[in-house]
């Protein structure tokens, strides 16, 4: 999550308006703008040009480490460190170890994906800046930071107003 930047925020009241606004902003060549919405809007990713999230790969790698970690744990304790004759079973009784390996795979994958989510979203954040308290209720917004290429407050304000923004306001940090 980049450093906080001051910028300009356009507030919309309807999902389709903000979708349209995002698409138009991308057409203008802007890349660093953000579309804020109370719920995930269908089709917003390609509207904002966000590529597919990389978390599945993290989950897969973590899952594999979970699997091999469980296998190592079970092998080290039951076969290598102190093999004990339990129930006439062989020291390395794979069928009995599969549930353990499956469980740890799922555990590692799940926790790592959530960890990746926290990393990508930059949470947990202490007291994040909020543009408008209604943004998590029924309003939508497009926030354009200053370092956006061709940032020009006045032009953008008219541009978003034309797209039906309810209001456009200056934001000192987001």
């Amino acid at each position, binding site marked *: 999550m980049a450093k*906080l930047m001051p910028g300009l925020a356009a507030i919309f009241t309807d999902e389709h308006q903000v979708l349209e606004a995002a698409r138009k902003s991308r057409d203008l060549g802007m890349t660093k703008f953000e579309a804020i919405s109370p719920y995930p809007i269908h089709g917003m990713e390609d509207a904002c040009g966000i590529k597919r999230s990389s978390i599945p790969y993290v989950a897969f790698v973590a899952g594999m480490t979970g699997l091999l970690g469980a296998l190592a744990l079970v092998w080290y304790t039951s076969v290598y460190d*102190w093999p004990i004759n339990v129930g006439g079973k062989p020291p390395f009784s794979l069928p009995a170890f599969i549930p353990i390996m499956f469980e740890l795979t799922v555990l590692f994958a799940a926790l790592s994906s959530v960890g990746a989510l*926290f*990393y990508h979203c*930059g949470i*947990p*954040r*202490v*007291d994040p800046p909020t543009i408008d308290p209604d943004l998590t209720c029924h309003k939508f917004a497009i926030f354009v930071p200053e370092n956006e290429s061709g940032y020009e407050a006045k032009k953008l304000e008219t541009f978003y107003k034309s797209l039906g923004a309810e209001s456009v306001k200056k934001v000192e940090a987001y």
Partner: protein
Amino acid sequence: MSIIFKKREVKETRGLLQRLVSFCFLGSIVGLASIMMMGCKFQPGWGYNKGHAPEQPIPYSHELHVGKLGMQCQYCHNQVERSKHSNVPTLQTCMNCHIQVKTDSPHIQKMREAYDAGNSIEWTRVHMLPDHVMFNHSAHVSKGVNCQTCHGPVETMEKVYQHADLSMGWCINCHRQEENKAPLNCTTCHH
């Protein structure tokens, strides 16, 4: 750590409070883990009191008797080859010599009075294994394991202290070595 403490440049009293909350949350996890680790390391009173050297009613010095005078361990602990318990010698054994030797020392007189009155000396136990362990001295001694292996250099001990921590892991490491050909079954010690 930067992820967790994304501090804002602007000084916020409230931020401090939230950081305090997450700090004590983390601290409790670390504390609990350390307690867990200490728990198994520091079991109450048994096995792990390595270096335990309690006060004895009579300051008997192994260094003097075994080190300087060269007495055999089995002279006093004579049942160690025949029984699972190694016995602390009876007063009679001490009196074999101390009936004449150093009779002026107050400790010897104290022992002499006890001997004549038919009582005994209440030694304080140094090596304490938990009740669920059945250690067999004769099995080890007959196998050729010498006393120093577990009890440490007794001949240099002015006051007997516990040399090894006598934990299960400590015993298992010996039993596990191929060359010792020692049984590794649970009922060897727990039955």
